[in-house]
């Protein structure tokens, strides 16, 4: 399941972000009638088609695996978390419908109607990200029920859906999608400019770089605000996770931020410490007390080192992304050509944004362990008793490798082919009498 999620999250993020890029590109084309933007929208929409399909099927794997791998969890939680999943189902429906309209409608709709059909895709994409994250929020802080003698009673699905972290987590997840898509798409364009591999359609590549970087440069600072809000929320509501993020063992006033270091049993050594910074971040008062791991029973520890390093990776790489975005903004504002060094940085920020996304996901998932739903059900108890699960995991891991490799190969082809040559005549369609 972890593998599936780590895989799906990339495609899901691109499925949320790409419609926005395509929408902007086609919108600019409609206004300016400049061919480069049309070509850009066509090229990106092909990428969107491939990525969305892989996202859709990997999402299917996830929804099935809920029952196939975690039946006990679903027995407990199905009635509580089903509502956001159902709403996500509708959002996914709308997304799938308009993806069909958009991808196959280039020649069937008026340009304006076609352009507008990208709106429901982008909107429902962001909404599905929000709905799914609501489930994750519930797993972090289960709510909307009472536990009487180990039985769940007084189920309130609305309260369960809006469990405390829903908004902060939902916004954080949606922004993550825009950050990754923005930097990812910009990186592809920057790479092409660096290699001078697309001289015949340099306008298209430049336009792509600008649009993608605008999205990235708007999303990344907002993401810092959202991330900061979540951290403060965690400090209050999920002290075990928060203490693991920071690898903070001792409950203390004037708590430091520790970057890196070696996480041992009971202490974190050799990290770079910024004294008082953590206390200040949590409550804007360097003398406030921050709960450390010593207040938490060891049976409730997440894998602290993993969580801590993931967190540092996420924040560290996000900071680099922010710097890249800022540097780009400075050059773009002066309407200067981007120096090769900055292009290289942008090209590098693509994979980096992927790392950031995965690290962030690691933080929330590992940070919640050993619980699948905090305080309610442990991960080990939720797993299926059906035989052959190991085989299943191997098979699906192979499927993921094959899908990812084919996807990569196809995207490279799509990206390389100039639009004019790529437009094959459509087969004689399909007229209904």
């Amino acid at each position: 399941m972890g593998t599936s999620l780590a895989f799906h999250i990339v495609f899901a993020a691109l499925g949320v972000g790409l419609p926005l890029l395509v929408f902007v590109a086609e919108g600019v084309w409609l206004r300016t009638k400049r061919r480069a933007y049309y070509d850009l929208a066509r090229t990106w929409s092909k990428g969107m088609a491939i990525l969305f399909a892989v996202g859709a099927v990997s999402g299917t794997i996830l929804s099935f695996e809920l029952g196939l791998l975690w039946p006990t969890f679903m027995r407990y939680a199905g009635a509580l978390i089903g509502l956001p999943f159902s709403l996500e189902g509708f959002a996914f429906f709308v997304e799938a419908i308009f993806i069909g309209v958009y991808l196959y409608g280039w020649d069937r709709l008026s340009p304006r109607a076609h352009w507008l059909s990208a709106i429901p895709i982008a909107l429902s994409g962001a909404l599905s990200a929000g709905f799914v994250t609501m489930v994750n929020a519930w797993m972090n802080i289960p709510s909307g029920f009472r536990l009487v003698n180990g039985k769940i009673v007084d189920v309130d699905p609305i309260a369960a859906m809006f469990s405390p972290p829903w908004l902060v987590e939902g916004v954080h997840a949606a922004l993550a999608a825009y950050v990754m898509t923005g930097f990812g798409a910009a990186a592809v364009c920057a790479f092409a400019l660096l290699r001078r591999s697309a001289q015949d359609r340099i306008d298209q590549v430049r336009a792509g770089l600008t649009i993608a970087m605008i999205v990235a440069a708007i999303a990344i600072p907002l993401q810092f605000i959202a991330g900061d809000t979540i951290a403060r929320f965690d400090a209050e509501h999920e002290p075990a996770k928060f203490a693991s993020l920071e690898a903070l063992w001792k409950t203390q006033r004037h708590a430091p931020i520790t970057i890196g270091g070696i996480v041992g049993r009971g202490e974190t050594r050799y990290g770079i410490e910024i004294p008082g910074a953590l206390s200040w971040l949590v409550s804007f008062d360097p003398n406030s007390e921050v709960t450390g791991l010593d207040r938490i029973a060891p049976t409730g520890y997440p894998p602290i080192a993993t969580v801590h390093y993931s967190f540092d990776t996420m924040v560290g790489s996000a900071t680099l992304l922010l710097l890249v975005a800022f540097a780009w903004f400075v050059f773009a504002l002066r309407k200067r050509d981007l120096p090769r060094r900055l292009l290289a940085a942008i090209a590098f920020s693509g994979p980096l944004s992927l790392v950031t996304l995965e690290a962030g996901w690691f933080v929330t998932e590992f940070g919640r362990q050993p619980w699948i739903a905090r305080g309610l059900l442990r991960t080990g108890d939720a797993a299926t008793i059906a035989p052959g699960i190991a085989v299943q995991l191997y098979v699906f891991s192979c499927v993921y490798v094959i899908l990812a490799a084919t996807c990569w190969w196809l995207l490279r082809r799509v990206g390389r082919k100039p639009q004019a040559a790529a437009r094959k005549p459509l087969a004689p369609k399909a007229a209904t009498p």
Partner: protein
Amino acid sequence: MTAAYAAAAVVVAALTLYAIFGGADFGGGVWDLFATGPRRRAQRDTITHAIGPVWESNHVWLIFAWVALFTCFPPAYADVGTYLNAPLTLALLGIVLRGAAFVFRNYASDDPTMARTWSFVFGASSIIAPFFLGDAIGAIATGRYAWTSPFALSVGLFNVALCAQVAAVFLIAETDDPSLREDFRRRAIRATIAVWIAGLIPAALARYAEPAFFSALTGSIARLAIAIAVVLGIGVMLLVVRNREMLARVAVGAEVVAVLAGWFGAQAPQFVPAHWAIEIAAAPSTTLSAFLIAVACGAVVLIPSLLYLFAIFKIRSRPHNSV
């Protein structure tokens, strides 16, 4: 009707729509695999263009049914996920490969090796998925989760035939080319005969091996639904033979509805026979009513969107601007 029954109706309705539209897409994959004769390429192109815009939204019906199942009937869902783990995993594998392969082969069309490989995967997985989904349904009907039983396997086979039939009937009206239409017409006739034969096998097996389910099948609702399905099946044949393909589309869709009504009518009020009655497996009433309200609100967005999609690609006859 109680909230539990309403929720069960939503699950079954979603499954039925999946069986018609998703089934047609699987059937398209089957005919892609068995594309033969001089117009092999044109057949495949027709299939690609028929499925392309709609397969992703058709596919969501299954997700929706699955989600509705765990929201409204969590314990039944947990049992189905546990005891039918193997067939559902195989079906899932088929579903995943089908979707990915379809897109991959379309975008790799200028690389013959890749296109051929993924075309084959597309066709093969279009058989695997409906087979194991049918098998899982059959296994539920046995009340023993006996997915390796001959009865369950024969339901899987029947489902593949049904998908092929629906697809062939739908495909006739997807092209203007008279010889292509003739190709699909012939396939529709063959598939309809196949459905008749494949339908007799589970019926006969149920008679001898699944007495409980067989006696349920002869109950009043199930008997009526099956009778209607048989009549519609004959109707499909007549309509196809007489070139009334639009009416044949309606008839074949109604036939699928009747088949599923027969299955579910036989099981009701059990959700999983011998294990979970609808009322007992149901989630708390607060969840059910929240879910039903969500479905009603969702339908307001969903239905016009779906109609729009089908209006663009399945009714309006020609592209706006020529390519």
